[in-house]
């Protein structure tokens, strides 16, 4: 059996990379990709702990619900990005700096 810590460290690495992508990218779609990386990191932790709970499988069910939420979130997020692109003619988050609709 692979030690639990190795799953958790892999999750921590993916989480940190996701944070770095979110902080350092200008394109809104790449920022969404960073969010997906973070959700995957959380899922790795849930699934890793779930193997010590083999009868209830609560962690795996939680992971499935997180995957469904990620799908809904990225669909709505991309719809918002499309509206922003129609209005501002750009998806660069630096140039979307106007609060007046």
């Amino acid at each position, binding site marked *: 059996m692979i030690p639990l810590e190795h799953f958790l460290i892999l999750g921590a690495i993916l989480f940190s990379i*996701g944070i770095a992508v979110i902080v350092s990218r200008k394109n809104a779609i790449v920022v969404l990709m960073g969010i997906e990386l973070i959700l995957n990191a959380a*899922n790795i932790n849930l699934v890793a702990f779930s*193997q010590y709970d083999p009868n209830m499988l609560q962690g795996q069910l939680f992971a499935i619900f997180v995957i469904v939420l990620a799908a809904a979130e990225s669909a709505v997020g991309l719809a918002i990005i499309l509206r922003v692109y129609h209005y501002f003619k750009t998806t660069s988050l630096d140039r979307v700096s106007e609060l007046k609709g």
Partner: protein
Amino acid sequence: MGNWVQLLFYAFAGVTVLSALSILFTRNVFYAALLLVVTFFGVAAIYVFAAADFVGVTQILVYIGGILVIMIFGIMLTNRLSGQPVTTGVYNKWSGYLTAIALFMVLFYAIIQANFASLQWVQDAQKTEPPIRATVKLIGIRTMGEFVLPFEVIAVLLLLALIGAAFLARRKK
């Protein structure tokens, strides 16, 4: 046997981390989307190593079959494709990387210090190590049993997200 499983786990973990790092270092948005496919495949393999076969298959179906296709559509719809690669600007470069490295240090220290292997319920589970079996049937029973309320709520939420996304993305007359 055990050695091979461990070796494969570290190979898949290495592929996952390397492709995620390449997302961080590439500026081409389309390459980032394709590297995300590799990352998601690696994470699906990691799920299988944690005895979660159904979650791994769901990961491939939903993330690679759904989310990645949506993202590539998004890239195509929000850029004027003119033969040049679609690139993204980078800002806050070093502060972002430093934040990520510092966060990773904190998490790493916490994971090492927490010493999860000494927790009571983890040790109990390790003593009665169950045979690895398919989880599909159990997940189906749980979803229709104790977890039927979250299942229904998430069904409504998916419908709302579908309607909301279609409403937001429509072209105004």
